[in-house]
C-alpha cells in the first residue's frame, strides 16, 4: 500500500466530487446566465470584461470542455472510492495521475479564456456600436 494513501484517497474523492459539481454546474448555468444578462442589452455591453468572459465561456467548445472535465473528475472520484474498498494501489495511482492531468488542463484553460476575453479593439467596437444602435 502507498504511504499516506488512507489520507490521500478520501481527499481525492472529496476533491473530485466538489470539482464535478462545480464544473457541471458552470457548464449548465453559464449559457443561461449569459442569455439573461444580454437579453435586453445593446452591443455596448461588450465593453465589460466580465460579460466578454461569460460570452467566451458560453461558447459550445468551452462548455463541451467543462462537461468532459467534470466527467473525468467523476472517474477520478470513483477510482479513489474503489481504492478505499479494494485497496489496489494501481487504482489510486491512476486516480492521482488523472487528477494532476485535469488540474493542468484546467489551469491552461482558465488562463487561455481569461486572456482571450481581455483582447478588444476599442475604436473598432465603438464603430460597430454606433452603426448598430441607430434604430434602438
Amino acid at each position, binding site marked *: 500500500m502507498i504511504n499516506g494513501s488512507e489520507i490521500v484517497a478520501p481527499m481525492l474523492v472529496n476533491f473530485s466530487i466538489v470539482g464535478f459539481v462545480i464544473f457541471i454546474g458552470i457548464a449548465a448555468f453559464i449559457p443561461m446566465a449569459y442569455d439573461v444578462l444580454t437579453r435586453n442589452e445593446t*452591443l455596448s455591453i461588450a465593453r465589460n470584461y466580465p460579460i466578454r468572459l461569460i*460570452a467566451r465561456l458560453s461558447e459550445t467548445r468551452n462548455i463541451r470542455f467543462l462537461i468532459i472535465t467534470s466527467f473525468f473528475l467523476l472517474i477520478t472520484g470513483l477510482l479513489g472510492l474503489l481504492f478505499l474498498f479494494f485497496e489496489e494501489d494501481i487504482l489510486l495511482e491512476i486516480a492521482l495521475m488523472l487528477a494532476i492531468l485535469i488540474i493542468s488542463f484546467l489551469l491552461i484553460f482558465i488562463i487561455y479564456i481569461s486572456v482571450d*476575453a481581455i*483582447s478588444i479593439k476599442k475604436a473598432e467596437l465603438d464603430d460597430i456600436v454606433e452603426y448598430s444602435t441607430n434604430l434602438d
Partner: protein
Amino acid sequence: MLVDNMQTQEVRGEEQTKEKIINLLERSEKYIWMSSGLNSEFYNDPDVKTAMVNAFKQVEDVRIIIDGDYKTKKVELRWLFEIAQQFREKIRIKQHQNLLHWLIVDGKHFRLERPHKTEMVGVDNLFVIDVFQPIVSDMLNKKFTKWWLKATSIEP
C-alpha cells in the same frame, strides 16, 4: 487565438460598397443573413448577382428580410425569387419595415449600414471582418433574429 484580428472599414460610394459586399459573400461558408431595401439597380448588377448566387449555393441557410414593399421587388429582382424557389429549403425571404440594412456572413463578417433614403446605395457602410469576441457577433445576430421573428414570410 488570443489576438484580436477584427478589422473594420468605413466605406462610402456605390462601387466600393459593391466590391466589399462581393468580398463578404465570397467568405461565406455556413449562412448568409441580410436585411436590405434590395435596390434593383445594385442587386441586378451582374457581378453582385453572380456573387450572391454562388454564395447562396455554398451555404446551408439564407435569410433575407426586405425592408419595405416586396411586390415591386418581386418583379424587379425576379432572379432572386426564382433562386429562392429553386432552393426553397434553405433560402427564406421575409418582409419588414424600418430596419437597418445588414449583411451577416457566418456570424463573424458583417456589413452594417447607417439609415438612408430609399433607392440609395452605399451611403455609409461599416464592414467588419473576423469578429473575435463572441459577445459582438452574438449581439448582432440576436438583433437580426429579433427582426426575423417579427417579419412576415413571403412566398417566393
